């Protein structure tokens, strides 16, 4: 058993991904957003005309849609200084060696090629606006699994993309889904054929390198009947004195009896606005699970949603948020029960320290006709010092009497009795509080893939508890 290397007061302080390289992109639309920028992105990608139409429609909506005044402070985003499209390489590589040295070095430092060898079924790596590397195990390719960058997905599977793109998250869902639809680039396209179970996770890694970068990846996952996939994404960025913007849209469709688990370890540097719309539709007896860890960013506004559209569908959200100095994590979850006998469980944990602000904002909605719907939401928050803040804003709407909905939330500090007990057993206060915090988040960390030590385990176990236990 090792000694804890750092104590809880270090959460979020020791950001080891803040480096950047000085590679030259092959193309950039420059700062700011105009109709021409949208057209240029589309032309660069040689897209079908319908996609350009969607982009332009969304762009017009983005211009007229007011900036949200709830959640976090969005008033300081300078939309004119952001780079909306930066193309780092000419082509997508199929081996790490093909990448330019600076970019390859970045991935090496993040440990991605190493992880791929050991325990991933497929890896996608996005650098700035484009997916620069993509690979899927050949066995899975043979079984019909598709795991591509979204741009390639659109080229090679236009029919599937056209059928689902913007159906789960319409462009006018919110201001940032409109922005994403207008300027999207990169992201993952996944299709899992009926009955195929992808046992090892597919991973996508998102990296921002340039200052004032805007990253707008778009992910579409279609899990066919009885199939299973676990998709894991991680994100990091360098530390700059000015801000970057990440506004992704993720759409998931899980067909009858299928299951999709989507795990996010968000560890953007603290100069990134992370404004993401994630939504999944679960058809009959399908299961959707969001495991959402938010450790980085300046402000995150993200509420992964599950639309339980088919009878017997099940949704689960495990959410954890850490807010350190200067951070605001406005995270949460939504479960929309539309069909009978649908169930959802939302477990949210947050920790705030050093003046950080962490919160849960959620919605559980039961439509008329969703007989027998059941939902349980449990939110717990720890506030580690006097400067920090915790918020809980759940909404419960029930239009169906034959439903049982429960919500509970608790906010507290580390229990003095627990501390006292552990310290009476010889632990220092720091060790004891590390252990308590570790126990507090354990229901979530234990749900992460065992092998997935790259991000979450390193961050939580190393930074908070060493390797206590």
């Amino acid at each position, binding site marked *: 058993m090792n000694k804890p290397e750092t104590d809880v007061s270090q959460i979020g302080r020791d950001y080891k991904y803040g480096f950047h390289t000085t590679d030259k992109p092959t193309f950039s639309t420059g700062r700011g957003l105009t109709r021409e920028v949208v057209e240029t992105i589309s032309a660069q990608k040689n897209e079908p005309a319908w996609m350009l139409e969607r982009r332009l429609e969304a762009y017009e909506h983005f211009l007229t849609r007011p900036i949200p005044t*709830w959640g976090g402070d969005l008033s300081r985003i300078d939309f004119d200084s952001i780079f909306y499209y930066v193309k780092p390489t000419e082509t997508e590589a199929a081996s790490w060696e093909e990448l330019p040295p600076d970019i390859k070095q970045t991935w090496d430092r993040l440990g991605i090629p190493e992880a791929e060898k050991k325990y991933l079924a497929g890896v996608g790596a996005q650098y700035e606006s484009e997916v620069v590397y993509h690979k899927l195990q050949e066995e899975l390719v043979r079984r019909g699994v598709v795991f591509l960058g979204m741009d390639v997905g659109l080229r090679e599977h236009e029919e599937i993309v056209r059928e689902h793109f913007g159906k789960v998250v319409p462009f006018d869902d919110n201001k940032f889904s409109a922005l994403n639809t207008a300027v999207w680039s990169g992201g993952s396209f996944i299709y899992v054929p009926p009955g195929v179970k992808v046992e090892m996770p597919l991973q996508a890694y998102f990296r921002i390198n340039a200052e004032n970068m805007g990253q707008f990846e778009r992910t579409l996952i279609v899990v066919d009947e009885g199939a299973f996939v676990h998709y894991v994404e991680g994100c990091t960025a360098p530390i700059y004195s000015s801000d970057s913007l990440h506004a992704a849209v993720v759409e998931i469709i899980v067909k009858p009896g299928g299951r999709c688990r989507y795990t996010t370890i968000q560890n953007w540097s603290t100069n990134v606005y992370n404004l993401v719309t994630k939504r999944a539709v679960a058809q009959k007896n399908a299961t959707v699970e969001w495991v959402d860890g938010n450790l980085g960013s300046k402000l995150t506004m993200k509420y992964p949603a599950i639309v339980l559209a088919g009878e017997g569908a099940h949704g689960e959200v495990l959410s954890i948020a850490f807010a350190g100095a200067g951070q605001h994590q406005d995270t949460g979850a939504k479960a929309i029960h539309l069909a009978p006998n649908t169930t959802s469980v939302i477990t949210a944990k947050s920790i705030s320290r050093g003046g950080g602000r962490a919160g849960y904002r959620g919605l559980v909605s*039961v439509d*008329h006709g969703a007989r027998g719907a059941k939902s349980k939401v449990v939110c717990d*928050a720890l*506030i*580690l*010092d*006097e*400067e*920090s*803040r*915790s*918020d*809980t*804003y*759940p*909404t*419960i*709407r*029930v*239009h*169906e*009497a*034959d*439903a*049982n*909905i*429960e*919500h*509970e*939330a*608790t*906010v*507290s*500090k580390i229990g003095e009795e627990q501390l006292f007990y552990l310290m009476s057993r010889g632990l220092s206060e720091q060790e004891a509080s590390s252990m308590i915090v570790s126990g507090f988040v354990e229901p979530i960390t234990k749900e992460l893939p065992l092998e997935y030590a790259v991000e979450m385990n390193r961050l939580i176990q190393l930074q908070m508890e060493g390797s206590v236990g």
Partner: protein
Amino acid sequence: MSRAAAKKVYGELSLPTTSEEGWRFTDLTGLDLDAYELAGEARPAEIAPLVELDFAGSARIDESGVEIVAAPEGIVFAPLKEKDKRIGALIEPGDKIAAANAAFWKHGLLVEVPAGVELERPLHVRIESTVANGSLPTRLLVVAGENSRFTLIEEHVSAADDLDALTNCAVEIHVGAGAKLEFVSLQHLSRQGWHFSRQHARLERDSELDWVCAGLGSKKSKTWISNDLAGAGATSRVTGLYFADGSQHLDFDTYQEHAAPRTNSDFLFRGALRDEATTVWRGMIRVEPEAQGTDAYQENRNLLLSRRAHANSIPGLEILANDVRCSHGATVGQVDREQLFYLMSRGLSAGEAERLIVSGFFAEALDRIEREPIREALTKALEARIP
């Protein structure tokens, strides 16, 4: 704010819409405040009292004015004067409804109990809406002096079961250091009218407020209950009960503001819904940085008795201090079929069994009501709602 200033605000503002956070689930479409007349003459009728008690002081307010039926010695229990500087200290005309009250209120009651005075028997005020298509904006100002103790019961009633009228009430309560106030607010207005009630209390050091709120009547209503725990060691307990049926829409909006150390608050709301009724319960516990040692709780439980009923529950926590214990719970559920089956297997009819289960559902809230006659009256009123 002067009447003139409030009139100006009233003229400038439009009614809140569902795009505003506090109004997301309560739609005021169809309400025209100006269509209800500020009637000069009341048309009083015999209205059966909900609670029959031996009151120390009693008053009636209707469109014609304030009638002090009985006032005890040693306290102020009198019509509220427009010049009273304390008016508006807790309620600002921040929206059109509050501005309407500030601009147009005619009749109000001042209840001022000096320091150290304890009243054994409760005080009572009944606000009677008697004019069809009438608007009745009223105010209550309650000042509990240091270490005073008393109970005040307010009732909102209508002269007829089908009276379409608008009632808009503002209640400001100051609970002095060490005082203990029991405040009971019973709303059983006609099911044809609109009702708005803003109730705001400020609690000083070591004071105690025990509040009961019952919402039974009105077509559409919104009731705000705010407690500012402004002095160290203050405690507030709010118990809410509501029952909505037909097409009633009842909205309760509560705020627990902890602004001083070692303050406690405990809000518990239980509501049952039948037919196509809608309820909204919204709550916020806010703990300011200086309010270390806060213990705060909020709970909202809803029982849906028919499939078209519709409950919204929006609890909330905003915690800016760390040495706190704050929690909330919200549920929406139905009558437990197993319980129902069990009771019916013992020979009860479906109606009897359901009534028993609903009574059980409200029991925990009713048990918190200290005065037995009030508890009994409310139990009876709730049971009367189950067919």
